[in-house]
Structure formats: C-alpha cells, structure tokens
C-alpha cells in the first residue's frame, strides 16, 4: 500500500513542474481543437503528435498524450449539440436530444450540462484507472471470446430501446446496419463482400461518413429548407447555470453512465464507438418519464457525455497494464510510448508505477482544464445558432465534407457521404430509427467475429463458462425488461395525414428489400464462413421487411408503421430539389476546382445568392474560409481532392 501511495504522490509531483504542465496544457489545447472539428478525433490528434514525441522525455510525452486524448470527447459536443453534426464517433448519441434542445433555444444549457457531465465522467475514469492497478489483470484475462460474444449480445439489446415508435422498422434498420457492416474483406476466407469491384470498399464503409450521412445531412437539409435559424426560440437566461444544476440533479445517472463508459472502455470486444449509444439506451431505459426523449431531454445529453469521457480512463487500463490497446487512440498512444522507450505491460506496474499515477493525475487535470475552457466558450459559441443559417451554412457544409474526407482521404468519401445522406434523409422522413442502424453497423463485425471465434475455440461449451453463462442470463433479462416496458415506450407524434400517401413509404421499403436481396445474392457466391453471417442476417431482415409491407397495406390511420414527415408539409418550406445544389455544391465544384478552391467559391456563391450579403462581406468571408482549410491541410499534411484545375496545372 505504501508503494502505491508513494507512487500517487510522486506522479503528482512530477506533473506539477511548469514544463510538464505546459506539455499537458498543449495536449489539452490540441485535443480541444481536434475534438471540436468533426471527423477528427483522438486518433488524428495522436498522429499529429507522434512525430514530435520522438526523443521527448517520457513524463512530458505522457502528459501531452493523455491530456490530448482526455478532452477530445469534451469539445466534440460543440458541433453535435449546436449544428447536429457528430464531432467525433463518440458523440453521436448526444445529437439526439442535444440538437433538439438547441432548436428550442436551450443550446447553452445543453452544452454546460454536457461539459459538466464530461468532467465528472472523466474524473470517474481516472478513479477507475487508479484502483485498477490492483484488480485489472485477473478480470481482463477472464473476458475470453465467449464472454465478448455475450457482451455484444447485451449491447445489441440496446436496439430494443431505440427502435422508435415502430419496433418492426427499428429492428429492420438494425438488420440493415448489420448488413452494411459486412461490406469489405471477410478475413476468414480473404474474400471481398459487396465491394462492387472498388478498392474503396475493401476496408468497409467508414463509421464517420455513415454517421454524418445519417444525422448531419438530413438535419442540415431540414434547416436549409424550413428555417431561418437553427434555433427558433429566444435564448433562455442562465442556460449555463441551469445545465450544471441538471447534472447535479441527475448524479446517479452520471455515476451509472460513467461506470458503463469505463467498463466498456476497458473490456475487449465492444469498442469505443458504441459506448455513447449504450449509455443513451440506459438513460432512456432507466427513467420513468420517457416522453421527452428525442425531443430535447437534458438527461439524453448527460448520459452519453459522462460515458464517453469515462471511457478514456477505462481504455488506459488494458493499454497500460496488459500492453493491449483499448481503442484506436490507445493503439497510437502505445506506439507513442514505445517510441519514447516505455513498454507497457507487466513491467510497467512493477517498475514505473509512478507513471501510471502520472496518467491518472493528467486525466483529472486535463478534464478540469478542458471543461473550464469549454464552459467559458459555451455561451458565446452557442450564439452561432441564432445567426441566420445561410451565413453559417457554407462553413458547416465545408466542415462536413472535410470530415467525411478524413475517412480515407479520397474522392470516394464524398460519394459515400452523398449516398448515405440520401439514405438518412429518407429514413428521417419515413420514421426509421437511425440509431438502430448505426448500432447494427458498429456491432456487425464484432458480432460476426465473436460468433466465429467462440464456435471455433469452444464450440457450444462456452456457455459452460460461468462468466459467459451469467452474461447470457443478464442479456435474457435485458430483453425481458425491454419487452415488458415497450408498451410504455415513447411514441412519436403520429400525423394522421401520413396514412393518406402510402406510395413513397412502400416504395422505400421495397427498395430496402431489393438492397437486402442484393447483399444476400452477393454472399451466395462466397465460401460458407464468409456467407453465413450476411445470409442469416439478410433472411431475418427480409422477414421483418415483408411483415412491414403487409402491415403497411392494412394499417389504419395513426399506426406507427406509417410515418411521412413530408405529408404535413407547410407551403413555406422549400422543396428538396431547390436545396440539393447547396448540399452537393462543394463536391460538384471540387470536380472542377479541387476542394481547396471549391470551398471559397461555394461560400461566395451561397452568401451572395442565398444570403444576399454585400460583396465585401462575401469576399472576406471566403478568404477566411480558404485560409482555414488551407491551414488545416498544411497541419495535417493533406492533399485535398483535386479537380480538373489541378490536373491541368500539373500538365503545364
């Protein structure tokens, strides 16, 4: 015990030197900026830092790396809450209620609630890391393939909570997500699935692009068509203070979600991008009055935000103690540690216990710093939602395309974003659960792998392992609980007019059915091990979709299977075709000018033609936009998508 206490103290002392505090602060500053920019997360931050770590001393490097990775999940809330664009893979669930709050003039409250929750979550994660020194190793070594499979089952049951008003549509969405997740190379047989003959799809489709397409594009389209500003209401007074109070009122929720975040971050098998959804599902499931969820309930922000910061402390546990990275960011942190001469694993605990406590202190301090900075900016930044949207739109659209481009840094990212954006727009319009699709997508590979590994290593004997068996019982319990509560679950405000125009809705289902069949036909040509998962998932999804069509034909007015948000459209809003040029303006212009120049030209056009601003304003704004993306390109050493212009220049 003395050893531990000494290490706690010496870790703290080492950190409290001005130079290391400066490193920590530098890391925090980078992390905040990276988190704030959609598409960039901890992984990008780490890869920016790695070259500088070469030859740095361990304490400083560790402080900078941990500082950076601790706060990306704090600042990524800004875009999620304010403009409905996921700031990183970890803050998708925050959009569901956070963005609704912003629309209702409560942006500042949503932000401060989420930052406070992030802070508490982060501290909880640091606490978990500090006590893990004693207990982590034996626990982590108990989580074998069978246990991982059961954890994935439990995570999948979250879909039950997030199906929206129609369970049938929600489950079908999840099935579709599982199928989309199978795109790419099936490692077991080294065969390509649904890659359509492209190199691009070999690595599967990117979660970031899919989330942007499903959430950001439909929301932006909606604002462009129907609203002047993102937020219609007058800002509420004292939003910031109210947000902090909200968190304190829900302290038990914060603790439960922080625990979920740390635990999933530490355990193998699930991965970080599902944590916010699990926390969100838990939040909805564990509260009595569910009516406000999806319409701006502050608890829908608090839950996921406390979990995604708690994750970082958790993910450090296997990284430091076993040398097994707990996330993508941690894999790079591991690489960073190795370049500075520290090898994580058993020897770290025996030889460098002080470094572990240095990490604990760094997380805690970084979270406090990050939260303070974000809170300070939350009120002024949230004002952006009261500015006329046509002034913000060019930069928001450019950021979305920039974010999508980070997936593989190729032209194809733009195409994929447009395709998933169209999917998102129609799913939103016809009341299909986008979270359910996303959960299916994220868990698809883990589920397939876990089933195959478990059967290969254990056969069905894995259920004889006590831990796997108890997890199995837990997952059954979850399903039972969800089914029992389903009758009380939230119902969207159903519009009776939706029943009058069934044509487009049925057409969408038929198109989905065709897609599922294409997936299955493609899988048929593969070897058994590569085909079994898509075919089985496809069959179940097909049954759900056919049931849905039958139900839609016979459904009466007010049934949850019939939803069409356009049915009740008021005359004032613009049609899709009139805003489509804005949505795809950037990639179209990029074809000719390349992305770098397409952004300022697009900005100029939009500001002049739609917002009707004076020339001088438009030109200055465009120059700033150009400088911003050009600078980003330099920092990240990017080559932006090139157009005819660049190819032409190259030939001169």
């Amino acid at each position, binding site marked *: 015990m003395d050893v531990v206490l000494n290490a706690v103290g010496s870790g703290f002392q080492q950190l409290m030197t001005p130079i290391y505090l400066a490193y920590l602060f530098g890391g925090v500053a980078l992390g905040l900026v990276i988190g704030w920019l959609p598409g960039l997360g901890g*992984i990008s931050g780490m*890869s920016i830092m790695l070259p500088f770590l070469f030859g740095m001393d361990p304490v400083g490097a560790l402080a900078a790396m941990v500082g950076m990775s601790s706060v990306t999940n704090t600042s990524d809330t800004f875009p999620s809450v304010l403009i409905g664009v996921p700031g990183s893979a970890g803050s998708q669930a925050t959009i569901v209620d956070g963005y609704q709050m912003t629309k209702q003039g409560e942006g500042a409250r949503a932000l401060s609630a989420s930052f406070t929750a992030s802070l508490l979550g982060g501290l909880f994660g640091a606490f978990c890391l500090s006590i893990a020194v004693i207990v982590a190793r034996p626990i982590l070594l108990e989580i074998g393939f069978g246990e991982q499979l059961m954890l994935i089952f439990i995570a999948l049951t979250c879909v039950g909570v997030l199906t929206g008003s129609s369970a049938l549509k929600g489950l079908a969405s999840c099935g579709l997500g599982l199928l989309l997740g199978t795109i790419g190379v*099936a490692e077991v047989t080294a065969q390509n699935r649904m890659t359509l003959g492209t190199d691009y799809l070999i690595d599967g489709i990117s979660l970031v692009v899919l989330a942007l397409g499903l959430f950001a594009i439909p929301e932006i389209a909606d604002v462009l068509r129907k609203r002047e500003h993102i937020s219609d209401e007058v800002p509420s007074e004292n939003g910031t203070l109210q947000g902090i109070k909200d968190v304190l009122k829900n302290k038990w929720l914060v603790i439960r979600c922080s625990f979920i975040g740390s635990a999933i971050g530490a355990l193998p098998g699930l991965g970080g991008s599902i944590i916010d959804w699990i926390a969100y599902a838990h939040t909805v499931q564990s509260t009595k009055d569910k009516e406000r969820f999806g319409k701006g309930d502050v608890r829908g922000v608090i839950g996921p935000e406390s979990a995604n910061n708690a994750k970082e402390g958790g993910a450090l546990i296997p990284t430091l103690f076993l040398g*097994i990275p707990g996330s993508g960011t941690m*894999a790079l942190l591991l690489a960073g540690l190795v370049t500075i001469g520290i*090898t994580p694993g058993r020897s770290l605990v025996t030889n460098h216990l002080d470094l572990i406590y240095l990490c604990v202190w760094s997380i805690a301090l970084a979270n406090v710093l990050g939260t303070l900075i974000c809170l300070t900016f939350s009120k002024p930044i949230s004002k952006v939602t009261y500015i006329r949207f046509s002034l913000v739109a060019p930069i928001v659209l450019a950021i979305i395309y920039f974010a999508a481009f980070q997936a593989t840094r190729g032209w*194809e990212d733009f195409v994929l974003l447009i395709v998933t954006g169209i999917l998102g727009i129609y799913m939103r319009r016809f009341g299909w659960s986008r979270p359910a699709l996303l959960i299916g997508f994220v868990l698809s590979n883990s589920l397939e792998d876990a089933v195959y590994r478990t059967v290969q290593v254990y056969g069905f004997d894995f259920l004889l392992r006590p831990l796997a068996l108890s997890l199995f019982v837990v997952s059954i319990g979850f399903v039972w609980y969800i089914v029992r509560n389903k009758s009380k679950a939230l119902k969207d405000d159903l519009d009776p007019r939706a029943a009058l125009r069934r044509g487009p809705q049925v057409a969408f289902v038929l198109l989905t059915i065709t897609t599922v069949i294409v997936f299955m036909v493609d899988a048929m040509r593969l070897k058994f091990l590569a085909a079994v998962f898509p075919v089985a998932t496809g069959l179940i999804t097909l049954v759900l979709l056919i049931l849905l069509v039958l139900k839609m034909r016979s459904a009466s007015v007010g049934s949850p299977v019939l939803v069409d948000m356009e049915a009740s459209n008021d005359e004032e809003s613009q049609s899709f075709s009139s805003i489509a040029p804005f949505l795809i303006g950037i990639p179209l212009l990029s074809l000719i000018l390349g992305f770098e120049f397409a952004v300022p030209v697009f900005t100029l056009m939009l500001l002049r033609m739609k917002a009707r601003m004076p020339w001088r304003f438009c030109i200055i704004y465009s120059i700033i936009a150009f400088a911003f993306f050009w600078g980003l390109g330099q920092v990240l050493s990017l080559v932006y998508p090139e157009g005819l212009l660049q190819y032409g220049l190259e030939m001169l």
Partner: protein
Amino acid sequence: MKHFDKKRVTIKGLVAAVAVTLAMPLTAQEVKLRRVELIVPYAPGGGSSIHGELFKEALEKTLPGNPTIIMRNVPGAGSVKGINEFHAKAKPDGNMVGSIASGTFFSFLVQSPEVKYPLTQFKPFLASPFGVIIYGRKNQAGGLGTDPIENIRKLQKAPGVYGGQNAISSDMPALVAFHLLKIAPKTLFGVSNKELQGAFQRGEVTINYDNMASYEENVKPMFADGSAVPLFTFGFINAQGKFVRDPAAPEIPIFTEVYEKVTGKALSGVELDIWKAMMAIRVMTSKALVLPVGTPQNIVDTYSEAARKAVELLKKDPRAQNVLGDYEQLTGKAAADAVKAAADMTPAQREWLRNWARTVHNVDF
C-alpha cells in the same frame, strides 16, 4: 462512380505521358530536389510510419540540397491503395518516394485484382530487415519444455490454436513454416494483433508470432515467467546468402535448423525456394523505400548514397534502436536484390503456394 473512374483513367494516362517526356531530359541534368513526398500506405502510428519518420529526418540531412520531406499516410486495403496511388502519381524525378512493407508484397504475390502496381519494376534504395519469432504457450500438448525439437514433435501430435489475419497475407510465412514442419494448428482468422495478445495471455490462442521489435519487452518476460516457450525464429540471411540466427535472439534456433533436425533432411527443392521467398518478404524487406518505375539511374544512385549516409547517421541515434533493431540495413543494390528476391516468384513457386492455400486453408487466389 463510373464517371470518376473514367476521368481518372484518362488523366492518369495524360500524367504518365507528360511524366515520361519530362523524365528524358532529366537524366542529363544534376539531381535537384526541393520538396519530396514520402507516401506511407499504412495508418499513422504504425510501424511503417515510425520507420518513415526516422528516415525522413535522416534523409533530409543526407540528400543533396537538403530537401524538405513531407510524409503522407495513404492507408487502405492493406497498403494496396497507397502504393497504387504512388504508382499512378509519382513522376520519375525523385520527388516522390514510396514506403512498401510485407503487405505490399503479399497482395502482389497473390495477384489480388486491386493491385495496379508493378512491384518488380520499382527502384528500391533502402530495405530494413526485421526478424520474426514463433512461440507457444507452455501448458499445451502435454507441456512444452526446453528442447525445441521435442516441442515440435509434441505439437505435431497436438497442434493447438493459431490466430492471425488470413492465410494469404502477413501470416503466410508462419503458416507455411507450420505446414513444412507438419504442424496443423486450428486457425482463427480475422483476429487483429492487439486482440491476439489478449487471446494468447488468456490461452485461447496457443501459438503466436511476433515481430522482434516487441521481443525484449513483451515476449521475453513470458519466457521468464514460464508461461510461454520459444519455438523458433525465422533467422536472417547474411551477405553470403546463408541462413543465420537472428541477431536479436541468437540463442533460439532458426526454422531451417529445426526443420533439419525434425525431418532428418535439409530443406530443399521448391520448398527451399518458397521458404527463401517467405524470408525475403517477411524478414529481409520488412520495410523498404522505393522510387517509381522508370526513375533514371543517377537519381536512384543519389538516393542510395543518401540512404547509406542516413544509416550511418542513425547508428549514432538512440531512437533508431527501437525501430531498426540490430539488423544490418540494406542500401543500393543490396536493397534492390532483396526486393527482387521477395517480389519475383516463379510460376512453379506460385503454384505451390496456391495449392497449399487451397488445400490447407480453403483460400483461393
């Protein structure tokens, strides 16, 4: 989609045509470099990026005119995407360098349809070898001991579980080695390296391989605490073309030694050729830097000389130890020969591998 592809193809053609015309007068000129781009076809933070970072700094100092080198990661499809892009975009003027690794060779070797680069025609100027070690859990096959030959005999009877990516990429050499030793482990594919470490510690996977980079810190402790034993290393090919023990672990026998003692005869014929190719890919050209097809000899020579000086420079650099280990760096012709040995495979060898992949692992290529 179609639209983009078509455009790209015509533009590629035009660029190539222009590049060729530009290259002709260059041979006569002195080599001038200002801004060099280094394409790393893997994600940031991986082995290739760290290797690239190290040589980027050193080459900036040793190349004539001290050009700035910008490292750019173009990950995707196991290095195929980045190297395709390198091949399509690079002009033979020395201003673009590609980093290739084992994955680049395997995709080329199995003639995967996505590969659009002529690997054998690139101009290598540096190759960094790295050793490989195979080890197993002690508590399997009735308990493994200190005698490597006895261990192999036990594993032939009770082969355990091996995990990896898939049979026709970076795991191929290890799987071929097991096959030649008549060990048929149960295989678990699609398992990433980080997952494998956990699975091995939990005992769900019982045979594993590792790059020598993690030997001292991650593998040796497991030998020390008695949870695992070494089976063999791949060894190293010296300047005389002989298989020798790995400089990082000279106490552990190499594959060819173990093979000879277990089977009673030396490795020979097509199997020896296959093993040489596997060694060339996995160990001798673990990472290599290349110039594009058609680069004039004077530019290649300039780079080779700069690489030789860079290696000298790095010998004094403590950071290089973690990245390059104790392995002799190959530059100039030695690097080109090593890449050639790894990439050039006769139809007979390829047929052997194809047959092996199909019959043993049910994978076609």
